[in-house]
Protein backbone atom coordinates (compact mmCIF):
# COMPACT_ATOMS: atom_id res chain seq x y z
CA UNK A 1 0.00 0.00 0.00
CA UNK A 2 2.31 2.75 -1.16
CA UNK A 3 0.74 3.92 -4.39
CA UNK A 4 -1.47 6.60 -2.89
CA UNK A 5 0.71 9.67 -2.45
CA UNK A 6 -0.51 12.67 -0.49
CA UNK A 7 1.22 16.01 -0.11
CA UNK A 8 2.01 17.37 3.35
CA UNK A 9 2.57 21.10 3.33
CA UNK A 10 6.06 21.92 4.63
CA UNK A 11 4.80 25.29 5.83
CA UNK A 12 1.70 24.40 7.87
CA UNK A 13 1.67 20.59 7.94
CA UNK A 14 -1.75 20.31 6.30
CA UNK A 15 -2.19 17.05 4.40
CA UNK A 16 -3.43 17.63 0.84
CA UNK A 17 -4.97 14.75 -1.11
CA UNK A 18 -5.47 14.75 -4.05
CA UNK A 19 -2.55 16.97 -4.95
CA UNK A 20 -2.70 20.74 -5.16
CA UNK A 21 -0.05 23.12 -6.42
CA UNK A 22 -0.85 25.48 -3.54
CA UNK A 23 -1.78 24.23 -0.08
CA UNK A 24 -5.51 24.17 0.57
CA UNK A 25 -4.87 25.56 4.03
CA UNK A 26 -2.08 28.17 3.68
CA UNK A 27 -1.40 28.46 -0.09
CA UNK A 28 2.28 27.55 0.28
CA UNK A 29 3.86 25.68 -2.63
CA UNK A 30 6.30 23.26 -0.99
CA UNK A 31 5.19 19.76 -0.03
CA UNK A 32 6.61 16.56 1.37
CA UNK A 33 5.19 13.44 -0.22
CA UNK A 34 3.66 11.03 2.27
CA UNK A 35 1.76 7.75 2.04
CA UNK A 36 -1.21 6.78 4.19
CA UNK A 37 -0.22 5.12 7.42
CA UNK A 38 -2.01 3.10 10.06
CA UNK A 39 -5.63 1.98 10.02
CA UNK A 40 -8.30 3.85 8.15
CA UNK A 41 -11.50 5.05 9.82
CA UNK A 42 -14.68 4.99 7.74
CA UNK A 43 -16.21 8.50 7.57
CA UNK A 44 -19.08 7.82 5.15
CA UNK A 45 -20.08 5.25 2.54
CA UNK A 46 -22.61 4.41 -0.14
CA UNK A 47 -23.53 1.24 -1.97
CA UNK A 48 -23.77 2.34 -5.58
CA UNK A 49 -26.19 0.29 -7.70
CA UNK A 50 -26.32 2.44 -10.83
CA UNK A 51 -22.75 2.20 -12.00
CA UNK A 52 -21.27 4.01 -14.98
CA UNK A 53 -20.38 2.57 -18.36
CA UNK A 54 -17.36 0.31 -18.10
CA UNK A 55 -18.07 -1.22 -14.70
CA UNK A 56 -19.78 -4.55 -15.16
CA UNK A 57 -21.05 -5.09 -11.62
CA UNK A 58 -24.50 -4.94 -10.06
CA UNK A 59 -23.46 -2.83 -7.07
CA UNK A 60 -20.25 -1.54 -5.57
CA UNK A 61 -19.54 -0.10 -2.12
CA UNK A 62 -17.55 3.14 -2.01
CA UNK A 63 -16.50 5.14 1.01
CA UNK A 64 -14.34 7.94 2.34
CA UNK A 65 -11.79 7.11 5.01
CA UNK A 66 -9.27 8.95 7.16
CA UNK A 67 -5.90 7.40 7.98
CA UNK A 68 -4.03 7.88 11.23
CA UNK A 69 -1.66 10.39 9.54
CA UNK A 70 -4.63 12.55 8.39
CA UNK A 71 -4.73 11.39 4.76
CA UNK A 72 -8.39 11.35 3.66
CA UNK A 73 -9.33 9.44 0.52
CA UNK A 74 -12.12 7.71 -1.34
CA UNK A 75 -11.76 3.98 -1.81
CA UNK A 76 -13.57 0.82 -2.71
CA UNK A 77 -14.95 -1.01 0.33
CA UNK A 78 -14.77 -4.80 0.48
CA UNK A 79 -16.98 -4.88 3.52
CA UNK A 80 -20.25 -6.80 4.02
CA UNK A 81 -21.78 -4.58 6.68
CA UNK A 82 -20.14 -1.17 6.79
CA UNK A 83 -20.71 1.16 9.72
CA UNK A 84 -19.51 4.68 10.31
CA UNK A 85 -16.33 4.77 12.38
CA UNK A 86 -15.26 1.19 11.67
CA UNK A 87 -11.54 0.49 11.23
CA UNK A 88 -10.35 -0.68 7.83
CA UNK A 89 -7.14 -2.06 6.36
CA UNK A 90 -5.94 -0.63 3.02
CA UNK A 91 -4.57 -2.35 -0.05
CA UNK A 92 -3.92 -1.23 -3.64
CA UNK A 93 -5.86 -3.29 -6.15
CA UNK A 94 -7.47 -3.09 -9.59
CA UNK A 95 -10.63 -0.97 -9.36
CA UNK A 96 -11.55 -0.20 -12.97
CA UNK A 97 -10.54 -0.67 -16.57
CA UNK A 98 -10.22 2.67 -18.38
CA UNK A 99 -9.29 2.78 -22.06
CA UNK A 100 -8.36 -0.90 -21.95
CA UNK A 101 -5.93 -0.35 -19.08
CA UNK A 102 -6.44 -1.78 -15.60
CA UNK A 103 -6.36 1.01 -13.03
CA UNK A 104 -5.32 0.39 -9.44
CA UNK A 105 -6.94 2.10 -6.51
CA UNK A 106 -7.42 2.14 -2.75
CA UNK A 107 -9.32 -0.90 -1.53
CA UNK A 108 -10.41 -1.32 2.06
CA UNK A 109 -11.30 -4.37 4.12
CA UNK A 110 -12.20 -4.75 7.81
CA UNK A 111 -9.11 -4.38 9.97
CA UNK A 112 -10.02 -7.48 12.02
Amino acid sequence: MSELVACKCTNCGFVNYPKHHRCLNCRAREFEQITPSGEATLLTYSEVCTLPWGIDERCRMLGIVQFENKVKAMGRLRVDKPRLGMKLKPSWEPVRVIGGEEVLGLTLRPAK
Partner: protein
Amino acid sequence: MRKVAIIGVGMIPFGRRDEDSLVDMLAYAALNAMDDAGLGERPIDAVYVGNMGAGLFNHQSAVASALVDRLNLLPAAADTVENGPASGGSAIKNGVLAVASGHFDLVLVAGGEKMREVIGPRATDIVATMTHPQAEYIYGATLPTMAGLFTRLYMKEYGVTSEHLARVAIKNHRNGLLNPYAHIHALITMEGILTSPHAIVNNPIVADPIRLYDCCPVSDGAAACLLCPAEMAREFGKPAIVVAGFGQATDTHTLQEREDPTDLKAVRIAAQQAFETAQLKPKDIDVAELHDAFTILEIAESEHAGFFKKGEGAKALDEGQTEIGGKLPINPSGGLKARGHPLGATGVAQVVELVWQLRGEAGERQVKGAEKGFSLNFGGFGNNVVSFVLRRE
Protein backbone atom coordinates in the same frame (compact mmCIF):
# COMPACT_ATOMS: atom_id res chain seq x y z
CA MET B 1 -22.41 49.13 -13.67
CA ARG B 2 -25.80 49.30 -15.39
CA LYS B 3 -28.89 47.62 -13.98
CA VAL B 4 -29.86 44.61 -16.14
CA ALA B 5 -33.39 43.51 -17.03
CA ILE B 6 -34.76 40.27 -18.44
CA ILE B 7 -37.16 41.24 -21.21
CA GLY B 8 -37.99 37.89 -22.76
CA VAL B 9 -37.93 34.24 -21.74
CA GLY B 10 -38.61 30.96 -23.53
CA MET B 11 -38.42 27.24 -23.03
CA ILE B 12 -39.32 24.02 -24.73
CA PRO B 13 -40.84 21.06 -22.92
CA PHE B 14 -38.10 18.96 -21.31
CA GLY B 15 -38.04 15.19 -21.75
CA ARG B 16 -36.89 12.81 -24.42
CA ARG B 17 -36.70 14.72 -27.72
CA ASP B 18 -35.40 12.24 -30.27
CA GLU B 19 -36.46 14.40 -33.23
CA ASP B 20 -34.51 17.49 -32.21
CA SER B 21 -30.78 18.13 -32.22
CA LEU B 22 -29.19 20.16 -29.43
CA VAL B 23 -28.97 23.21 -31.70
CA ASP B 24 -32.63 22.77 -32.73
CA MET B 25 -33.67 22.80 -29.09
CA LEU B 26 -31.57 25.86 -28.31
CA ALA B 27 -33.00 27.62 -31.37
CA TYR B 28 -36.63 26.88 -30.40
CA ALA B 29 -36.08 28.14 -26.85
CA ALA B 30 -34.25 31.24 -28.14
CA LEU B 31 -37.01 32.05 -30.65
CA ASN B 32 -39.58 31.73 -27.86
CA ALA B 33 -37.59 34.20 -25.76
CA MET B 34 -37.18 36.62 -28.69
CA ASP B 35 -40.91 36.47 -29.48
CA ASP B 36 -41.79 36.83 -25.79
CA ALA B 37 -39.85 40.10 -25.73
CA GLY B 38 -41.34 41.26 -29.03
CA LEU B 39 -37.81 41.70 -30.32
CA GLY B 40 -38.76 41.95 -33.98
CA GLU B 41 -35.80 42.61 -36.26
CA ARG B 42 -33.61 44.32 -33.67
CA PRO B 43 -30.09 42.88 -33.76
CA ILE B 44 -28.73 40.89 -30.84
CA ASP B 45 -25.21 41.92 -29.84
CA ALA B 46 -24.02 38.77 -28.11
CA VAL B 47 -25.05 35.18 -27.37
CA TYR B 48 -23.96 33.03 -24.45
CA VAL B 49 -24.83 29.35 -24.49
CA GLY B 50 -24.65 27.20 -21.35
CA ASN B 51 -23.81 23.61 -22.19
CA MET B 52 -21.83 20.99 -20.33
CA GLY B 53 -21.30 18.04 -22.57
CA ALA B 54 -22.18 18.39 -26.25
CA GLY B 55 -18.73 17.09 -27.16
CA LEU B 56 -19.36 13.88 -25.24
CA PHE B 57 -23.14 13.46 -25.57
CA ASN B 58 -23.57 14.65 -29.17
CA HIS B 59 -20.09 14.76 -30.73
CA GLN B 60 -20.47 18.48 -31.30
CA SER B 61 -18.47 21.47 -30.13
CA ALA B 62 -18.67 25.25 -30.59
CA VAL B 63 -22.40 25.17 -29.89
CA ALA B 64 -22.83 28.95 -29.53
CA SER B 65 -21.34 29.51 -33.00
CA ALA B 66 -23.76 26.92 -34.39
CA LEU B 67 -26.72 28.63 -32.70
CA VAL B 68 -26.02 32.14 -34.04
CA ASP B 69 -25.70 30.64 -37.50
CA ARG B 70 -28.93 28.62 -37.16
CA LEU B 71 -30.87 31.71 -36.06
CA ASN B 72 -29.03 34.09 -38.36
CA LEU B 73 -27.98 36.30 -35.50
CA LEU B 74 -24.74 36.90 -37.42
CA PRO B 75 -22.41 38.69 -36.70
CA ALA B 76 -23.26 38.61 -32.96
CA ALA B 77 -20.46 37.72 -30.57
CA ALA B 78 -20.96 34.14 -29.34
CA ASP B 79 -19.47 32.06 -26.53
CA THR B 80 -20.23 28.63 -25.14
CA VAL B 81 -20.00 28.56 -21.36
CA GLU B 82 -19.19 25.28 -19.62
CA ASN B 83 -19.54 24.98 -15.85
CA GLY B 84 -20.92 21.47 -15.39
CA PRO B 85 -24.54 21.46 -14.22
CA ALA B 86 -24.21 25.18 -13.43
CA SER B 87 -23.38 26.05 -17.06
CA GLY B 88 -26.76 27.77 -17.49
CA GLY B 89 -26.27 29.94 -14.42
CA SER B 90 -22.77 30.83 -15.53
CA ALA B 91 -23.99 31.72 -19.03
CA ILE B 92 -26.56 34.12 -17.54
CA LYS B 93 -23.90 35.59 -15.25
CA ASN B 94 -21.71 36.27 -18.28
CA GLY B 95 -24.62 37.86 -20.11
CA VAL B 96 -25.53 40.02 -17.13
CA LEU B 97 -21.95 41.24 -16.74
CA ALA B 98 -21.68 41.97 -20.47
CA VAL B 99 -24.81 44.18 -20.33
CA ALA B 100 -23.96 45.70 -16.94
CA SER B 101 -20.51 46.71 -18.20
CA GLY B 102 -22.06 48.74 -21.00
CA HIS B 103 -20.31 46.74 -23.71
CA PHE B 104 -23.42 45.05 -25.10
CA ASP B 105 -27.08 46.12 -25.05
CA LEU B 106 -29.05 43.10 -26.27
CA VAL B 107 -27.79 39.73 -25.12
CA LEU B 108 -29.35 36.33 -25.66
CA VAL B 109 -28.57 33.59 -23.15
CA ALA B 110 -29.57 30.02 -23.94
CA GLY B 111 -28.87 26.80 -22.07
CA GLY B 112 -29.37 23.30 -23.36
CA GLU B 113 -28.35 19.69 -23.21
CA LYS B 114 -29.25 16.62 -25.22
CA MET B 115 -28.48 13.75 -22.86
CA ARG B 116 -30.81 11.02 -24.13
CA GLU B 117 -28.76 10.52 -27.27
CA VAL B 118 -26.62 8.06 -25.29
CA ILE B 119 -27.70 5.09 -23.15
CA GLY B 120 -28.11 5.50 -19.37
CA PRO B 121 -24.76 4.09 -18.18
CA ARG B 122 -22.95 6.20 -20.78
CA ALA B 123 -24.78 9.33 -19.58
CA THR B 124 -23.89 8.41 -16.00
CA ASP B 125 -20.24 8.10 -17.03
CA ILE B 126 -20.23 11.40 -18.93
CA VAL B 127 -21.71 13.24 -15.95
CA ALA B 128 -19.16 11.50 -13.69
CA THR B 129 -16.30 13.13 -15.62
CA MET B 130 -16.95 16.07 -13.28
CA THR B 131 -15.52 14.04 -10.40
CA HIS B 132 -11.79 14.04 -9.65
CA PRO B 133 -10.07 11.80 -12.23
CA GLN B 134 -7.63 10.09 -9.85
CA ALA B 135 -9.30 10.46 -6.47
CA GLU B 136 -12.92 9.66 -7.38
CA TYR B 137 -13.64 8.72 -11.01
CA ILE B 138 -11.41 5.63 -11.07
CA TYR B 139 -13.54 4.04 -8.34
CA GLY B 140 -16.74 4.37 -10.35
CA ALA B 141 -17.93 7.36 -8.33
CA THR B 142 -20.93 9.08 -9.91
CA LEU B 143 -22.88 12.18 -8.96
CA PRO B 144 -25.47 9.99 -7.16
CA THR B 145 -22.52 8.43 -5.29
CA MET B 146 -21.52 11.85 -4.00
CA ALA B 147 -25.14 12.47 -3.03
CA GLY B 148 -25.24 9.12 -1.22
CA LEU B 149 -22.06 9.88 0.75
CA PHE B 150 -23.38 13.34 1.61
CA THR B 151 -26.88 12.16 2.52
CA ARG B 152 -25.59 9.54 4.96
CA LEU B 153 -23.71 12.25 6.86
CA TYR B 154 -26.62 14.71 6.70
CA MET B 155 -28.98 12.08 8.08
CA LYS B 156 -26.60 11.33 10.94
CA GLU B 157 -25.87 14.97 11.82
CA TYR B 158 -29.26 16.58 11.23
CA GLY B 159 -31.86 13.86 11.57
CA VAL B 160 -33.02 13.97 7.95
CA THR B 161 -34.85 10.72 7.12
CA SER B 162 -35.77 8.82 3.97
CA GLU B 163 -39.32 10.05 4.59
CA HIS B 164 -38.16 13.68 4.38
CA LEU B 165 -36.42 12.94 1.10
CA ALA B 166 -39.55 11.25 -0.25
CA ARG B 167 -41.59 14.28 0.81
CA VAL B 168 -39.41 16.56 -1.35
CA ALA B 169 -39.98 14.23 -4.32
CA ILE B 170 -43.74 14.05 -3.73
CA LYS B 171 -44.02 17.86 -3.46
CA ASN B 172 -41.97 18.54 -6.56
CA HIS B 173 -43.75 15.93 -8.67
CA ARG B 174 -47.06 17.44 -7.56
CA ASN B 175 -45.78 20.85 -8.70
CA GLY B 176 -44.47 19.35 -11.92
CA LEU B 177 -47.97 18.19 -12.79
CA LEU B 178 -48.88 21.88 -13.07
CA ASN B 179 -45.95 22.67 -15.37
CA PRO B 180 -46.49 21.87 -19.06
CA TYR B 181 -42.72 22.09 -19.62
CA ALA B 182 -41.88 19.39 -17.05
CA HIS B 183 -40.24 16.13 -18.13
CA ILE B 184 -42.18 13.98 -15.65
CA HIS B 185 -45.92 14.34 -15.15
CA ALA B 186 -46.70 11.78 -12.48
CA LEU B 187 -48.24 11.94 -9.03
CA ILE B 188 -46.25 9.83 -6.59
CA THR B 189 -47.17 8.77 -3.06
CA MET B 190 -45.33 7.88 0.13
CA GLU B 191 -46.73 4.35 -0.10
CA GLY B 192 -45.62 3.94 -3.68
CA ILE B 193 -42.05 5.05 -3.18
CA LEU B 194 -41.26 4.29 0.45
CA THR B 195 -43.65 2.54 2.80
CA SER B 196 -45.42 -0.23 0.84
CA PRO B 197 -43.90 -3.71 0.33
CA HIS B 198 -43.52 -2.90 -3.37
CA ALA B 199 -41.76 0.41 -2.83
CA ILE B 200 -38.29 -1.08 -3.29
CA VAL B 201 -39.35 -2.26 -6.76
CA ASN B 202 -40.82 1.13 -7.72
CA ASN B 203 -38.02 3.02 -6.07
CA PRO B 204 -34.80 0.96 -6.05
CA ILE B 205 -31.52 1.99 -4.48
CA VAL B 206 -29.31 4.09 -6.75
CA ALA B 207 -26.59 5.01 -4.26
CA ASP B 208 -27.64 4.05 -0.75
CA PRO B 209 -29.37 5.84 0.96
CA ILE B 210 -30.36 7.61 -2.29
CA ARG B 211 -33.14 5.90 -4.24
CA LEU B 212 -34.43 6.40 -7.77
CA TYR B 213 -37.07 8.97 -6.74
CA ASP B 214 -34.42 10.95 -4.90
CA CYS B 215 -32.73 11.63 -8.25
CA CYS B 216 -33.66 13.94 -11.11
CA PRO B 217 -34.32 12.36 -14.49
CA VAL B 218 -31.89 12.44 -17.42
CA SER B 219 -33.43 14.93 -19.84
CA ASP B 220 -33.18 16.72 -23.14
CA GLY B 221 -34.19 20.37 -23.14
CA ALA B 222 -33.36 24.02 -23.57
CA ALA B 223 -34.33 27.39 -22.12
CA ALA B 224 -33.44 30.97 -23.01
CA CYS B 225 -33.70 34.56 -21.87
CA LEU B 226 -33.04 37.94 -23.40
CA LEU B 227 -31.22 40.65 -21.44
CA CYS B 228 -30.85 44.41 -21.88
CA PRO B 229 -30.12 47.49 -19.76
CA ALA B 230 -33.04 48.22 -17.42
CA GLU B 231 -33.52 51.68 -18.92
CA MET B 232 -34.09 50.08 -22.33
CA ALA B 233 -36.57 47.51 -21.03
CA ARG B 234 -39.61 49.78 -21.42
CA GLU B 235 -39.13 49.61 -25.20
CA PHE B 236 -40.31 45.99 -25.04
CA GLY B 237 -43.70 44.59 -24.31
CA LYS B 238 -43.33 42.61 -21.09
CA PRO B 239 -42.96 43.82 -17.50
CA ALA B 240 -39.25 44.14 -16.79
CA ILE B 241 -37.76 41.74 -14.31
CA VAL B 242 -34.49 43.04 -12.95
CA VAL B 243 -31.44 40.96 -12.05
CA ALA B 244 -31.14 42.51 -8.61
CA GLY B 245 -28.23 40.38 -7.43
CA PHE B 246 -26.02 37.48 -8.26
CA GLY B 247 -23.31 35.43 -6.65
CA GLN B 248 -20.90 32.68 -7.54
CA ALA B 249 -18.53 30.67 -5.39
CA THR B 250 -16.43 27.53 -5.54
CA ASP B 251 -15.42 24.78 -3.13
CA THR B 252 -12.98 21.86 -3.19
CA HIS B 253 -13.20 19.41 -6.06
CA THR B 254 -13.58 16.39 -3.78
CA LEU B 255 -16.01 16.00 -0.90
CA GLN B 256 -13.35 14.45 1.33
CA GLU B 257 -11.26 17.64 1.38
CA ARG B 258 -14.00 19.72 2.99
CA GLU B 259 -13.41 20.34 6.67
CA ASP B 260 -17.09 19.59 7.26
CA PRO B 261 -18.47 17.64 4.27
CA THR B 262 -22.02 18.61 5.26
CA ASP B 263 -21.16 22.31 4.89
CA LEU B 264 -22.10 23.55 1.40
CA LYS B 265 -19.74 26.49 1.59
CA ALA B 266 -20.10 27.56 -2.05
CA VAL B 267 -23.90 27.64 -1.64
CA ARG B 268 -23.57 29.82 1.45
CA ILE B 269 -21.19 32.27 -0.21
CA ALA B 270 -22.98 32.47 -3.58
CA ALA B 271 -26.32 33.08 -1.84
CA GLN B 272 -24.84 35.70 0.51
CA GLN B 273 -23.32 37.54 -2.44
CA ALA B 274 -26.62 37.49 -4.31
CA PHE B 275 -28.54 38.84 -1.32
CA GLU B 276 -25.90 41.49 -0.59
CA THR B 277 -25.82 42.81 -4.15
CA ALA B 278 -29.63 42.85 -4.20
CA GLN B 279 -29.69 44.53 -0.77
CA LEU B 280 -32.26 41.97 0.30
CA LYS B 281 -32.41 39.21 2.89
CA PRO B 282 -33.63 35.63 2.55
CA LYS B 283 -36.84 36.58 4.37
CA ASP B 284 -37.66 39.02 1.54
CA ILE B 285 -37.85 36.25 -1.08
CA ASP B 286 -41.30 35.14 -2.26
CA VAL B 287 -40.33 32.13 -4.39
CA ALA B 288 -37.18 30.05 -4.86
CA GLU B 289 -35.92 27.66 -7.51
CA LEU B 290 -33.28 25.42 -5.95
CA HIS B 291 -31.08 22.77 -7.57
CA ASP B 292 -32.74 19.54 -6.38
CA ALA B 293 -30.74 17.17 -8.58
CA PHE B 294 -31.09 14.99 -5.47
CA THR B 295 -33.84 15.48 -2.90
CA ILE B 296 -31.33 16.03 -0.08
CA LEU B 297 -30.05 19.08 -1.95
CA GLU B 298 -33.35 20.94 -1.76
CA ILE B 299 -33.28 20.59 2.02
CA ALA B 300 -29.56 21.36 2.42
CA GLU B 301 -29.58 24.28 -0.02
CA SER B 302 -32.63 25.82 1.64
CA GLU B 303 -30.60 25.92 4.85
CA HIS B 304 -27.26 27.04 3.39
CA ALA B 305 -28.90 29.80 1.32
CA GLY B 306 -30.22 31.21 4.60
CA PHE B 307 -33.95 30.47 4.32
CA PHE B 308 -33.88 28.12 7.32
CA LYS B 309 -31.37 27.44 10.08
CA LYS B 310 -29.06 24.50 9.50
CA GLY B 311 -30.89 21.33 10.44
CA GLU B 312 -34.33 22.93 10.14
CA GLY B 313 -34.96 22.57 6.41
CA ALA B 314 -36.67 19.20 6.87
CA LYS B 315 -38.91 20.68 9.58
CA ALA B 316 -39.94 23.51 7.25
CA LEU B 317 -40.75 20.89 4.63
CA ASP B 318 -42.83 18.92 7.16
CA GLU B 319 -44.75 22.07 8.05
CA GLY B 320 -45.60 22.76 4.41
CA GLN B 321 -43.63 26.01 4.32
CA THR B 322 -42.08 25.08 0.96
CA GLU B 323 -45.36 24.21 -0.77
CA ILE B 324 -46.74 26.57 -3.44
CA GLY B 325 -49.12 28.07 -0.87
CA GLY B 326 -46.52 28.06 1.91
CA LYS B 327 -44.35 30.75 3.48
CA LEU B 328 -41.49 30.13 1.01
CA PRO B 329 -42.55 28.11 -2.03
CA ILE B 330 -39.55 26.13 -3.30
CA ASN B 331 -39.49 24.71 -6.81
CA PRO B 332 -43.05 25.49 -7.94
CA SER B 333 -41.82 24.42 -11.40
CA GLY B 334 -41.31 20.89 -10.11
CA GLY B 335 -37.59 21.56 -9.79
CA LEU B 336 -35.00 19.38 -11.42
CA LYS B 337 -36.83 16.46 -9.86
CA ALA B 338 -39.89 16.77 -12.10
CA ARG B 339 -39.05 19.43 -14.70
CA GLY B 340 -35.91 17.46 -15.52
CA HIS B 341 -32.23 18.32 -15.60
CA PRO B 342 -30.76 18.84 -19.06
CA LEU B 343 -27.50 20.00 -17.50
CA GLY B 344 -26.73 23.21 -19.39
CA ALA B 345 -30.41 24.19 -19.53
CA THR B 346 -31.16 24.02 -15.81
CA GLY B 347 -29.72 27.32 -14.59
CA VAL B 348 -31.54 29.15 -17.38
CA ALA B 349 -34.79 27.23 -16.81
CA GLN B 350 -34.72 28.25 -13.13
CA VAL B 351 -34.51 31.92 -14.13
CA VAL B 352 -37.22 31.49 -16.79
CA GLU B 353 -39.53 30.03 -14.13
CA LEU B 354 -38.81 32.92 -11.78
CA VAL B 355 -39.56 35.44 -14.52
CA TRP B 356 -42.92 33.76 -15.19
CA GLN B 357 -43.63 33.74 -11.45
CA LEU B 358 -42.71 37.42 -10.99
CA ARG B 359 -44.77 38.46 -14.01
CA GLY B 360 -47.75 36.47 -12.73
CA GLU B 361 -47.66 34.19 -15.79
CA ALA B 362 -47.07 30.84 -14.08
CA GLY B 363 -50.59 29.52 -14.51
CA GLU B 364 -51.81 26.92 -12.03
CA ARG B 365 -48.49 26.88 -10.18
CA GLN B 366 -48.44 30.68 -9.69
CA VAL B 367 -47.18 31.86 -6.31
CA LYS B 368 -49.60 34.62 -5.44
CA GLY B 369 -48.15 38.12 -5.38
CA ALA B 370 -44.56 37.00 -6.00
CA GLU B 371 -42.28 40.01 -6.48
CA LYS B 372 -38.83 38.71 -5.55
CA GLY B 373 -37.31 35.38 -6.55
CA PHE B 374 -34.13 33.45 -5.84
CA SER B 375 -32.39 30.79 -7.92
CA LEU B 376 -29.51 28.49 -7.11
CA ASN B 377 -27.64 26.45 -9.73
CA PHE B 378 -25.31 23.83 -8.18
CA GLY B 379 -22.33 22.64 -10.23
CA GLY B 380 -20.33 19.48 -9.60
CA PHE B 381 -21.20 18.34 -6.12
CA GLY B 382 -21.33 21.89 -4.82
CA ASN B 383 -17.91 22.92 -6.06
CA ASN B 384 -19.20 25.73 -8.31
CA VAL B 385 -22.48 27.43 -7.46
CA VAL B 386 -24.27 30.35 -9.15
CA SER B 387 -27.26 32.16 -7.69
CA PHE B 388 -29.50 35.06 -8.66
CA VAL B 389 -32.02 37.34 -7.01
CA LEU B 390 -34.65 38.68 -9.41
CA ARG B 391 -37.11 41.46 -8.68
CA ARG B 392 -40.18 42.79 -10.44
CA GLU B 393 -39.79 46.53 -11.06
